């Protein structure tokens, strides 16, 4: 390739490395050059990624890489959405070259994470990915960003520690650092260690996948990170956690057959616990999303909720459940990237994401509104968009498997989606235009063009879900998992029922034509000014009447008992307790008394001598 005698894997690494360094160095000279360099890097990387051979191993240090269908799927998501986000970055020349450096490194680390086939490479890439995220959240600093970044870092470290510990258990018990060796050797492991390793892995990955109760860093990190990057953080990087959970859950534990625990409703208790955690995450987070006053936090909680769906699908563990969860991972990546990009555009133009201060932007930013609706339809799971088949599969799987309570929770969560989605789109785009925003303009070309790019797969996979199902079936086949096979390009059939996406789409357009017909039958209309509303005869110019603050106040009042439950309080308590104990220890040991220090030295020397004596023996 390119006349260079290099393995494509090495080339890929070189492209990312060189791209990052060049972007960083040359980025200081021109405001736009850094984004174009990022785009070129990502385009090259995508090209190489699509032509990777199956296996590659590095001699020293001995690392193993490879590509399969699952890595391909997540890799395409990462690179595709990364490129789109990078394209939108054209409108943000004010971001520093450091950010671009970290951004390229982050995508590179994510790609090599997906390609890694042994524990060392996996963990290295995981850490690189986590640290670059930290750098991007921190950005140029500031108290709030620093707090959010620190919170992220602490959680990330905890997650990494879990993963490292689990890897240590796995490597020790199976004497192998390669995934294939571990998968082969895991059945000989003692049952307790096996469960512990898998549980630790899932806990570790759940931090990145923002599963409750490891979610507390998410709202802060999402709110404080650079606005276009939040799209990538929520859309793609959270999916890497999902990828990890998939590995731990299905590849390592071979669909829990190896975990000797009883079954409930035909599902393994391990999966059952995960399903409950997922459903509670989905439910709780969506209820919290309803009461947010800042749009970014609202979408952040919405992300947590949707990721709960994916975990729920994994927990069900049946063929439909796995396909639904993977499908939802794809659809969440698409629509949440879109929504966060729209929000980034709105913040760029108005400078705020506080919903009470926005409103009426449909008149000024009609394109953004249209795509906010598209993204919202997918988020709410309206048929014809990608959001529906994924949710539908999860519901069908849950009902078919007899997960009755969790199904109800999941349904309640998806009803709550309508609440916070409407709040999002109403408070920003509908209602009264704020006086400060009378001359706001539409977002610049790179941003709205990126909306279009993301919307194409949203509709295409919404109308032809079979195309995605094909990939999921191949993934399932690859890992010996049960696969949904009963589908065509437009129809998916489950034991419970069937769904023909294309027919729904076509019939909707026929119905829409009927509605339009009614519209044209009726008499003429008169365009009225925005302030010409019915207010019991009052004229409203001097008053601000945008219904943006505490949108669901009456609901919040009723849900107060639920809102009181918070894991953050427990963490606060733990932190306080730790601080107290550490304080006591500090006071006890570093007392400032020379005699005491002398005692410590003596004890230390005694221990040292004893140790040396022991080793000599």
């Amino acid at each position: 390739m390119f006349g260079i005698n290099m393995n494509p894997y090495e080339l890929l690494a070189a492209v990312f490395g060189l791209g990052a360094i060049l972007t960083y160095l040359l980025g200081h000279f021109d405001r736009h050059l850094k984004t174009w360099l990022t785009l070129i890097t990502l385009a090259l990387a995508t090209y190489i990624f699509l032509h990777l051979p199956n296996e590659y191993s590095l001699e020293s240090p001995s690392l193993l890489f490879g590509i399969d269908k699952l890595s391909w799927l997540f890799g395409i998501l990462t690179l595709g959405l990364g490129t789109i986000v990078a394209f939108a970055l054209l409108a943000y020349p004010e971001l520093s070259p450091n950010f671009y450096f970290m951004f390229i490194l982050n995508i590179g680390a994510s790609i090599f994470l997906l390609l890694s086939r042994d524990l060392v490479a996996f963990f290295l890439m995981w850490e690189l990915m986590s640290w670059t995220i930290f750098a991007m959240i921190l950005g140029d600093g500031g108290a709030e960003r620093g707090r959010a970044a620190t919170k992220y870092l602490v959680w990330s470290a905890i997650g990494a520690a879990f993963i490292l510990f689990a890897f240590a258990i796995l490597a020790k018990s199976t004497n192998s650092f390669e995934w294939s060796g571990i998968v082969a050797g895991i059945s000989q492991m003692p049952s307790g260690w096996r469960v512990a390793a898998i549980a630790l892995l899932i806990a570790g990955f759940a931090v990145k996948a923002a599963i409750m109760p490891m979610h507390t860093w998410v709202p802060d990190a999402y709110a404080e990170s650079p606005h276009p990057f939040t799209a990538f953080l929520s859309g793609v990087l959270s999916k890497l956690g999902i990828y990890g959970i998939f590995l731990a859950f299905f590849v390592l534990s071979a669909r829990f057959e190896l975990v000797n625990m009883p079954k409930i409703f035909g599902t393994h208790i391990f999966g059952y616990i995960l399903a409950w955690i997922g459903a509670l995450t989905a439910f709780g987070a969506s209820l919290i999303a309803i009461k947010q006053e800042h749009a970014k936090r609202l979408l952040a909680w919405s992300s947590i909720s949707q990721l709960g769906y994916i975990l729920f699908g994994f927990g069900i563990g049946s063929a439909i459940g796995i396909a639904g969860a993977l499908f939802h991972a794809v659809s969440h990546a698409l629509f949440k990237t879109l929504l966060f990009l729209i929000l980034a555009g709105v913040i760029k133009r108005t400078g705020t994401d506080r919903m009470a201060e926005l409103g009426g932007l449909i008149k000024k930013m009609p394109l953004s509104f249209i795509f906010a609706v598209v993204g919202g339809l997918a988020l709410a799971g309206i048929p014809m968009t990608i959001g529906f088949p994924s949710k539908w599969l999860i519901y069908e799987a849950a009902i078919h498997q007899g997960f009755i309570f969790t199904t109800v929770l999941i349904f309640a969560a998806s009803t709550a989606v309508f609440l916070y989605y409407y709040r999002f789109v109403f408070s920003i785009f509908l209602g009264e235009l704020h006086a400060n925003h009378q001359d706001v303009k539409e977002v610049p070309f790179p941003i709205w063009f990126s909306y279009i790019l993301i919307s194409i797969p949203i509709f295409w996979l919404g109308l032809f879900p079979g195309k995605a199902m094909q990939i999921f079936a191949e993934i399932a086949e690859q890992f010996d998992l049960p696969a949904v096979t009963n589908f065509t390009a437009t129809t998916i059939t489950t034991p419970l029922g069937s769904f023909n996406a294309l027919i729904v789409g076509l019939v909707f357009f026929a119905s829409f034509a009927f509605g339009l017909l009614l519209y044209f039958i009726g008499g003429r209309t008169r365009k009225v000014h925005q302030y010409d509303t019915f207010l019991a005869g009052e004229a409203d110019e001097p008053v601000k009447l945008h219904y943006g603050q505490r949108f669901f106040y009456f609901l919040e009042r009723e849900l107060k008992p639920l809102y009181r439950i918070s894991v953050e309080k427990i963490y606060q308590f733990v932190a306080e307790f730790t601080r107290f104990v550490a304080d006591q220890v500090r006071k006890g040991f570093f007392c400032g008394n020379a005699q005491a220090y002398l005692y410590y030295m003596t004890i230390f020397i005694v221990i040292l001598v004893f140790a040396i004596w022991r080793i000599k023996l």
Partner: protein
Amino acid sequence: MTGQILWAIFMPILVIIIGLIYMGLARKITARIHNRYGPPFYQNIIDVIKLFSKKDVANHGVMFSLGPVIAVAGMVISLLFIPIGNRPLLSFNGDIIVLLYLLVIAPLGMALGVGEGANPNGAIGIARALTLMLGYEVVLVIAAVAVMIHAGSASFMEIIRQQQGGVAHWFIWPLFLSALATDIALQAILGEKPFDQPIAPHEIASGPMVEYGGKFLGMLQIYHAIAIIVETGIFVNLFLGGGSLVWWFVKSFAVFFVALLINAVMPRFRIGQAFKFYWTYPAAIGLVGLIIVAIT
């Protein structure tokens, strides 16, 4: 095939007329309960003709005028997905869950339209409607899951097929608690008192409809007419065994009639109370029913 297409075109019009007559009868029956004479049963058809003939209707923008269009379109597509009188049209292409999501298109489109109207009353109405929806949707889903588990299928046709063979086979008997919960949920889905907070003419000036007049309001009347048939139709198909065309409408009117009687004598809950109500008693009834189904 030709017959099916003709029926697909004819049926929505039939349903619109029947739905409007339902609404007229509702006014008549309510009037009789209030010891009044009441309007003729075809009053709502006259209303719709009048509304469509009105001119110079206020229009706040493109989304504002698309709102009622999407509302009608969303209801028509939902209508095509439920079998009416043993005549399935598209029911093979989607099941109950598909229908539950198709049913949302209409209110969502309308909500977006109302939003552009920039009237705070409309927004409050939508916020109330969504809150109420969070309340009753849970109850409805609990009941629907019970039916799906009981029937082992989520397809309407399969559920209706299992209820064939007389009154004794109707799902209302084995799933009585679920049917009861659904009926309570139906009260809010139909927007009848005591759950008409989203509209509440005395508090928020008819809520979502506040800026809509003329043909837009006419379209919303048509939307409501179809919605009554669809929503009562779901109950008929799930619990009362479908039936031939005439029987189907008789059953659906019977379901509507029950809601109407409650409506005629009830005041209105505060919205918070309504939400709390749905998440307590009907949800509890539904859950008991669901557990019974899951165990047996």
